[in-house]
């Protein structure tokens, strides 16, 4: 297991270095990166000073080394908009984004688990068909659209839930639904198909043959097995959730990383955009690492393997 962790950690580091490389290349794509970093009325001297400060007068590989060295320390430069270290600005907002992504995940699971399980148990039944339609709609309807409709109907017309901002649990509900909307479909289908396999397996037949109630078999025994592929999906979909959170944050005025990065794009606040992309990659790698480790708790074969 520890060898496995070490290998995964290494892969994570490689991935993050790759992300840094992408950011670095993107920065060069713009021509003069300094032009992006300075405010509109910067002088020629400002340009020269910034170039020197960033080591842009040096050859590219050397620049990349400097870039990496700074990045490792979390230094992506100061946001020119806010005159504060870009990464620090985003880290401040990271809890809000994680909270939202987590809430989205919880919503997705709350919906996907019962739907997936019932669909599998009653294959071809009403729930299965409804879930199938629901799943298709889920993938075909953009989350931000759902978000706007939710604001319109639930918050404004019915006044059931607050429409915006971060606060109590109530504030989380609508954005979580808008964000969790998309993965519900995929999770339901994954769960359904793995449940189908499992319910058709020898051990479930055995469990039936010794008189375990179907309720136990489905919700206690089979579900735990079905979670193994689902957890893999959670890792994959967390990336989507983070990306999706960027859009949903804009709709719900959620003070997270995404909104900061969107603002930064429009303000050409490049240090913040860079830091945002790298932060997203780091979070993704860490989450996937956690997911990988959590397999061990769900599937003992991996724990001992």
């Amino acid at each position: 297991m520890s060898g496995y962790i070490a290998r995964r950690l290494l892969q994570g580091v490689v991935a993050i270095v790759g992300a840094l490389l992408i950011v670095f290349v993107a920065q060069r794509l713009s021509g003069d990166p300094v032009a992006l970093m300075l405010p509109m009325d910067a002088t020629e001297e400002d340009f020269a000073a910034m170039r020197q400060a960033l080591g842009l007068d040096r050859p590219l590989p050397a620049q990349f080394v400097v870039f990496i060295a700074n990045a490792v320390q979390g230094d992506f430069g100061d946001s020119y908009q806010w005159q504060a270290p870009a990464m620090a600005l985003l880290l401040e907002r990271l809890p809000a984004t994680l909270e939202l992504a987590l809430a989205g995940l919880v919503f997705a699971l709350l919906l996907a688990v019962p739907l997936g399980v019932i669909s599998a148990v009653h294959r071809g039944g009403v729930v299965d068909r409804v879930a199938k339609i629901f799943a298709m709609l889920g993938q075909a309807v953009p989350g931000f659209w759902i978000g706007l409709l939710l604001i319109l109907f639930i918050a404004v017309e019915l006044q059931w839930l607050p429409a915006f901002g971060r606060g109590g649990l109530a504030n989380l509900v609508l954005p979580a639904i808008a964000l969790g909307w998309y993965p519900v479909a995929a999770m339901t289908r994954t769960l359904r198909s793995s449940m189908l396999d499992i319910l058709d397996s020898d051990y479930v037949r055995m469990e039936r043959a010794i008189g375990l109630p179907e309720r136990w078999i489905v919700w206690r025994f089979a579900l735990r097995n079905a979670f193994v592929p689902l957890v893999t999906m959670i890792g994959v979909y967390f990336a989507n959730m983070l990306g999706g959170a960027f859009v949903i944050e804009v709709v719900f005025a959620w003070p997270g990383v995404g909104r900061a990065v969107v603002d930064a794009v429009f303000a050409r606040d490049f240090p913040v955009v860079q830091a945002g992309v790298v932060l997203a990659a780091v979070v993704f790698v860490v989450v996937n690492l956690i997911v990988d480790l959590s397999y061990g708790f769900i599937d003992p074969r991996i724990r001992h393997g």
Partner: protein
Amino acid sequence: MAEAVLPRPLLGRLLRAREGGFPYIAATVLALVLVCALLGPWISPHDAGRIALSEAMTPPAWLEGGSMSHVLGTDNLGRDILSRIIAGARVSANVALYAIVLSGFIGAVLGMAAGYFGGVVDALISRLIDVQMSVPSIPLAMLFAAVLPPGEAMVIFIIVLSYWTWYARLVRGEVLSLRERDFVKLAKVAGVGTPTVFYRHLAPNVLNMLLVLATLQFGSVIVFEAGLSFLGLGIQPPNVSWGGMLADGRNFIEVAWWLITMPGLAIMAACLASNLLGDWLRDTLDPVRRQL
């Protein structure tokens, strides 16, 4: 286990019959999208960009105040929504086709190389996939939106950047298993050159899966593009895109619901259709892996 045919209610039997059959409705919707893409300017009732301020916010024809000359109503600048949806189909189809063909091609080539050669090549490409997969696509899109001129090319570039990994992983896995099959081994033993093995033995086997994935992703790309445009990073006016229409219409959601509903429905229909057709293709081309 084999499929069961317990006696069912008539409706159930009808649904089941359709489940296995060709999805006519989905195919029609997709065909419609493609027809709009090809013939847009000739079949659209108005010029999609024509501004007629005095006709702004005309509701759809079936509502009070609607008119038959604007069946789906007009937007805040008096532009005909039906015409814009037709024009949007063109952009959406364009972006989706280019993006899918490019990412499919790049992904397939890299995936085949990784699966076929294995070793260092595989390790390199696999790491590349890992790296790409660990940068969520929306933040990545923002990065490039900050440095590249916005527009169709950028959207396609970003989509290709995020989507090629799907194809690469799929193809790599398939080739890995094909490589061990007898006919490929035989070909290699017989001294058939690598390109020929690729071309003659691997490509046709992989093609089916690519076709399925591409069809399934058609809709996903449209939704992705809508997300980018919603943030203002996607297709730029005066080019019309469904995503852009949603973005433009969102400020009027309480005043004129049709601005956001109609393009939303278009996205939904196209995406649903591509999913349904993709499912059908998968079941038809690869019935063994129905649960895929």
